[in-house]
């Protein structure tokens, strides 16, 4: 069984870059580049299946493989080493200045290119959202391009004969579907996908891992197909949202002082708590 998991690297949301500054790479330090938390959920989904598969396999059979692929990010290699430290078997970096990844359709094309070069695979995992600036569209676009049965926003996965039974997020509840083994699953941040920590063994593997870098040419893609000029979703403007209302956030003090501070401010503003 060969599982591919597409991950993103983002600027940590712990970084206090406000509004448009968040999108300015010159303001970002390398240490603040992290695997997108929702991508970690996708890695977890892939690793859980690998673990189940490995536990059930015959002795002479090869174990399941999980390959992490990262296109988006300023230093994808860093994210990929962490993915291996979590338990992924290997990793592929896709980096090329000509690739434009802000348009979900172009990103889906890049992913298709990567999958074609990888060749055979059984399952594709990705996360439904990139925090902060998601297009929320890549999973569905990729599934449609590949003609793969798919589930978006999965919350739980159960192995069944010849495929998976998957529960996914739905307005007013949860929907259960069954997909064949060759499928695409995008994950939510449900309890089931709570990411594991890196392990000692994983960290060693990550240090030793040779991670290839594929360029657009390696994927058979040229700038007029996946470059900025090919984007059909084009940014017209990006501006800070000015919030008029003032917010009163208490950041300092002993807990009791903070509560007193809040209550007296509420009183001053004539905001009544309760009847």
């Amino acid at each position, binding site marked *: 069984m060969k599982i591919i998991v597409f991950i993103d690297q983002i600027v940590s949301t712990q970084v206090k870059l406000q509004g448009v500054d968040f999108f300015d790479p010159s303001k970002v330090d390398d240490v603040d580049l992290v695997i997108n938390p929702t991508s970690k959920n996708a890695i977890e989904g892939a690793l859980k299946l690998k673990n189940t598969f490995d536990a059930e396999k015959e002795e002479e059979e090869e174990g399941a493989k999980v390959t992490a692929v990262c296109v988006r990010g300023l230093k994808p290699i860093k994210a990929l080493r962490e993915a291996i430290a979590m338990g992924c078997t290997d990793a592929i970096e896709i980096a090329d200045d000509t690739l434009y990844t802000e348009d979900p359709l172009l990103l889906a094309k890049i992913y298709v290119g990567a999958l074609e070069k990888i060749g055979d695979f059984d399952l594709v995992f990705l996360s439904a959202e990139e925090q902060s600036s998601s297009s929320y569209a890549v999973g569905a676009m990729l599934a449609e391009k590949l003609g793969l049965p798919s589930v978006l*926003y999965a919350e739980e996965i159960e192995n069944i004969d010849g495929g998976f039974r998957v529960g996914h997020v739905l307005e007013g509840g949860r929907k259960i579907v069954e997909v064949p083994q060759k499928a695409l699953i995008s994950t939510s941040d449900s309890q089931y996908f709570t990411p594991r920590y890196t392990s000692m063994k994983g960290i060693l593997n990550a240090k030793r891992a040779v991670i290839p870098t594929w360029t657009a040419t390696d994927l058979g893609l040229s700038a007029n197909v996946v470059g900025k000029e090919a984007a059909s979703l084009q940014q*017209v403007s990006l501006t800070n949202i000015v919030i008029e209302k003032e917010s009163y956030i208490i950041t300092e003090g002993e807990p009791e002082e903070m509560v007193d501070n809040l209550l007296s401010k509420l009183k001053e503003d004539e905001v009544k708590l309760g009847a």
Partner: protein
Amino acid sequence: MKILVFGQIRDNAIEENVLGILNKLSEVFADSEISLALLANQINNDWVEELGKHGAKKVYTVEASELENYLSYPYVKSMLEIIEKTEPSLVLAAGTVFGEDLIPRLAVHHGISCAQRIVDISLDIDNILFHTPVRDDQAMRVTKLVGAIKFATTRTGAFFINENPSGKSPEVEKVEVTFEAEDMLVKHIEIKKAERTVNLKDAKLIVAGGRGVGGKDNFQILKDLATLLNGEIGATRACTDLHWIEETYEIGQTGQSVSPDIYIAAGISGAPQHLSGVKAKTLISINKDEGAPIFNYSDYGIVGDLHEILPILKKKLE
């Protein structure tokens, strides 16, 4: 201009967000011709009438047992047929889980990208502009789509519904679509509906907890505080998924929509899917992470551990 809207059905009625879209479209595109696509096992005439009232001039219907539940392939196939018939310049759907699955796929078939979760749509000289908040609603990204046909979804809760619609019965056209075995590769098993035993809609005060609450038993302090303040409790999907609290208390896009005077958010990060269901006059939040997005939306906040803050708050209020 021709606009086609996906008329999603939910709980045997038109999804509310679809009505919101119709209202918005009538404001922005005064002279447009708005058609709806209704896909179901069996079309209910009430849906057609309601869409007409809200401004639909024409409704395309596809009736088939394969459409009883949303599944990507049969829905994409049906929509593509309707698009071919109507040749719209814009195709819109509400940004529900199904709408967000459908629109990107339709876009792929037309070789174009799409804009998801827009909160506004406007007209430039010859462009349709899509407005999407990014970075936890700190910045607004305006985009345009290059191509003869454009695809977008709207953020749930973004648009008002016209309370007094006065449109007429629309024209109805039946569209025949045939499905093959390979359209049904993904099998619908069931929908596990969350029980809604408690109605939070009219609550004046809600004490809501998130993953930061840290466990089932820890919800007691929230309940005590809510009781003390004559309010209700609420929770994020993270908590209901963990079974810390009954599903009925879930608030947000996939939970209940609430509009209390006061919303106390404890240990909630402030995901858009949660906040899209919260329209509070005053939002007070407690979170130990100063960078948590919830503070961007809060009127008042304490950066601290809810396990320390809430008991003190309760004691002082008693």
